[in-house]
């Protein structure tokens, strides 16, 4: 009987101790959180410095504005497969596109090369504008089809598959047309950006060489 009482008392004490520690945690946590979101964020400005700070803010805003690309530029969302043609803050045209599938292709046999079919992300610029482009099939296109990789360039050239226009943005990547218009809006490509015919035509006419492309 005595042992049972002692055990109950010990359990009650342990429970009360736990509650006390938890209470202390809450007290400290809430005390800190009351200064949220940051005690040092609002640095005091002396009255005499207000005009100086205002001027500094204006200069910074001007400098930030200067970082924006001049003239038309392209913004591509690889997750939503959307392309925006913009000029300044204005959206000139929106297009549904297809970006990289993210698939990895592994070459069978001795060479063991592999390719990751991602659309590259970052800041690029239009490096070339091509009408009626030919597709020079890279090695992966043959590996994927289980075909032998040809030695001659003429065996790699294919016409009519990239649409009527192509905008190159470096390292073999292009914004081009597609035969698979029903797959627009999905991630299916090998890294290039596929665009529907009408949108491609508009882009080709509107965007000069050197225009910025932001892919995220």
């Amino acid at each position: 009987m005595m042992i049972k009482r002692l055990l109950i008392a010990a359990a009650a004490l342990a429970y009360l101790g736990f509650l006390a520690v938890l209470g202390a945690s809450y007290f400290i946590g809430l005390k800190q959180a009351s200064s949220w979101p940051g005690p040092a964020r609002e640095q005091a400005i002396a009255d005499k410095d207000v005009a100086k700070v205002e001027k500094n803010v204006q200069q910074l805003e001007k400098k930030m504005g200067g970082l924006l690309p001049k003239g038309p530029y392209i913004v591509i969302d690889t997750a939503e497969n959307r392309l925006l043609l913009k000029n300044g803050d204005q959206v000139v045209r929106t297009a549904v596109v297809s970006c990289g599938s993210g698939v990895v292709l592994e070459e069978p046999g001795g060479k063991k090369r592999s390719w990751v079919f991602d659309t590259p992300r970052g800041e690029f610029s239009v490096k070339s504008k091509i009408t009626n482009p030919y597709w020079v099939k890279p090695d992966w296109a043959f590996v994927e089809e289980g075909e032998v990789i040809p030695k001659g360039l003429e065996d790699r050239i294919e016409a009519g598959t990239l649409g009527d226009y192509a905008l190159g943005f470096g390292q073999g990547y292009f914004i081009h047309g597609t035969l698979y218009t029903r797959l627009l809006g999905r991630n299916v490509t090998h890294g290039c950006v596929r665009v529907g015919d009408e949108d491609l035509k508009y882009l080709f006419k509107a965007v000069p060489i050197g225009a910025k492309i932001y892919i995220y």
Partner: protein
Amino acid sequence: MKKTAVFAAIAAAGLAVLGWAVGPDKAALAKKQGALNAEYVLAKDAKFYFVFDVEGKKLELRVRGMVLRTWPLQAMRFWGRPDFVGTVELSKKTTLKAPERIVIKPGESELIAPAPGTKPAAAGAAAADYDLEALELRDMPKRFSLDFDNGLHVTVKAKGSGSSGFLGSMKDAWRWYVRLPLGHLFGARRGQGQSELEIVFNDEKDAQSIYWHMFDGIKGIIL
């Protein structure tokens, strides 16, 4: 005499209101200057960065000062050290089941994503219905966490994507109401107090696209 007293009182009240009004403006100005200074350093570079406006309840992806994407927060809760604002870098993205890339070995798996040169198949079901062999937005997790180099741990989740069932709810509650406070208490004693933010989005696609766009090493500003 009475009129003078009334005017004096009105003038004093006016000055007090003016002083109160100028105070917050100065704070806002200081905040704006700090934010612009920090952002300009990041925007000079061509890399993407994010701006997490905690008070404004929104997360933005930007480049060159241009907003590419805005994710408005539906809800948010916080525990721990409040000094997490400033320029940060994402050091780790964690999820229970990370999306995996599909590996194609010719001759072993069926090719579903066609190369530009292959003949298109006949039109049939809508494109959105296809289950493609691809890593898409829909494959991204709806719940994950982001660890930043300043010790801030952010749990991102879509509304309704929390742990399911009674046990799951208990686990969530235990973590938030017991484990975190205790961890913070004992961590703070060792100088390792933690900052824990939980942000919830209305649309599950928002959480998924954050996972897509927030890559390891991305820099950003927390306001």
